[in-house]
């Protein structure tokens, strides 16, 4: 990308009903769709899942990030979306990852999409941050859902 990439970080509440296996399947399908769409849009990023929370980082050309974000907003498998950061970034944090999957196992939550091939470890700085987001949110009381 010639211009500076835009970066968006948000978290949301997972709203997938079902057994842990069904949830894992659903997350796997989210990742597959995200990787397919993001590759077309020139977007990279990472998704962390745990304790009923999604934390996601999207980066790429501004309009592409906005398009991807809008598609994600229309997805009813999550809700209570909170944008934590949105703006230009120095460089991509996940170059080459259409959508990296951040393993939740380190934070001791329900396993999800464990067979995912594109998982990054918690040693990655931004991946660690996404996990930190989930960590810090998980101790907060659940916001009202109606």
């Amino acid at each position, binding site marked *: 990308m010639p211009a500076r990439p835009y970066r968006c970080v*948000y978290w949301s509440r997972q709203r997938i009903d079902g057994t842990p296996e069904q949830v894992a399947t659903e997350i796997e399908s989210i990742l597959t769709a995200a990787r397919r769409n993001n590759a077309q849009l020139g977007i990279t990023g990472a998704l962390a899942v745990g304790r009923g929370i999604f934390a996601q980082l999207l980066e790429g050309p501004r309009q592409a990030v*906005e398009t991807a974000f809008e598609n994600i907003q*229309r997805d009813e498998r999550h*809700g209570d979306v909170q*944008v934590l950061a949105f703006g230009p970034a120095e460089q991509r944090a996940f170059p080459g990852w259409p959508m990296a999957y951040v393993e939740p196992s380190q934070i001791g939550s329900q396993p999800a999409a464990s067979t995912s091939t594109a998982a990054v470890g918690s040693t990655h700085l931004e991946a660690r941050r996404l996990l930190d987001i989930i960590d810090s949110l998980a101790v907060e009381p659940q916001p009202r859902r109606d």
Partner: protein
Amino acid sequence: MGSVHSIKLAGKPSVQSRERTPLRQVSSKLAAGLALSAFATFDSALAMVAPDGRILMTNPAFDQLFGDISAEDLPTQLQIESWQQAESAERIVPFPNGRSFKIKIMALPEGYFVCAGDITDQLAQAARDARLVRTDRLTELGNQRLLRERLQDLLESSPAVRNDCALLTVDLDRFKAVNDALGRNIGDALLCLVSKRIRSAVSGVDVVTRLYGDQFGIIQIGRPQPEAATILAKRLGDLLSRPYMLEGQLIDVTARVGIAPLAQAATDVDQVMKNADLALNRARQDQSKDYCVFESGMDETVKARRALETDLRRALALREFSLVYQPQFDLLTRRVTGFEALLRWNSPTRGMVSPLDFIPLAEETGIINPIGEWVLRTACRDAANWPADITVAVNISAVQFAHRTLATTVLSALSDIDLDPRRLELEITESVMLDARGTALGVLQRLRSTGVRVSLDDFGTGYSSLGYLRSFPFDKIKIDQSFVRGTLEDPGNRAIVRAIASLGQNLGMATVAEGVETAEHMERVAADGCTHVQGYLISRPIPPEQVAGFLAGNGAQKAACRDDPFLVA
């Protein structure tokens, strides 16, 4: 066709034209020849059909149009059978090959004369035009016309169909703010994103339209109502209120939804749309929910409010308002020092109307401004007849402060009546101080510099910000009656009264305990440090003609002769 005189006889010659310009006589043979060559060269598709439906003769244009259809199939596809009895007819006939033809037929003494044209492209263009006038250009959703037409169709359909339909109207809080702050382009782009989110939430048969501005209309079809519409409204409330990202801006708006199930409505599109709007208005007012289902009572509530508003607008001109005065008693000097003016509305049709019922409406509609001015002038005029050391207190609403002329109105009332400004006390509530631009503070300062006194009403019930006490040198703090009446049961209330009284003492402000009803109340608030009391114990509010007698020493108890159903203080 026995005697062919003219090729015109193939058509219908008019008697008149024959009289005016006699037709040249030609031989039958020549006429037949001319008719035939005209038939052959005419650029419309023409054919002669026998009474039994067989095609007898066609011209080249006809052959070109229908050449790829076999002679056996063609009469069926032209639907010639259905014209048997017709003298002449014109039909649009769709062919199995996907094209549409306009077929014109004229009955001849034996058989038919057929003229055909391919109007497929014309029809397609008409359909495009019809779609276009029913489409919102910005969002490519339907528009109001489409919504109204579809509603009309559904209202005319069977109860089973109609009962499973609902109209939902959606609008966005804060959309205008987005438009103002970020510009129309972003506002328009936001509306497009909202449209897409709505589309993603509805089913394929539902009708989605933009009515105007940020208002959308959805007809939900084929679902049990009002349950399905409620589920959709919740989903829309969630989806549309999620953040939007546009041009590097993060935008938050809140969607509200009004629901009008078609089953409840009259068979009238306007009524359904009005019902949905009423529900939407209710959803806007009720902050706890972002949707509302129409109920028949809503219409009546709105009608009742409108009737009240009409009466209220008339009441001033018809002199239906009056003032009553409630004395304020100085605990130190043991005498009455002033009166608070209280507004009463005696409507010939409604009877006595409580200020709690009409003041909020008067404030909302702005009628409070002329009423407030009347109260001010009347109170000043009444007070001018009282002894020179007796003050009059007038309540001024926050809405009146939004009106620029308030200071002028007060000062002109004082000078017209020649009342010493120090005898006028304006009672305001904290809401007046909430205006961010500080215009109210400026008005108060200007008035106070002329000698007008200012007191803070209902202290302790609202925000009770001590900052207000610092931002303006009030002459009096009025302690809300809920703390005064409660002193017996609740030690907490007493502590609050004591704290406010001590605060007033230290700030050099008088403190009035409102709602003092018994001698015990008075003893307590006196012990707690209040400087003044107001309430039933001293007197109920009295009409102006009784003020002189009251002050002449008839005594507090004796003056309390008039029942007042709306005692405020």
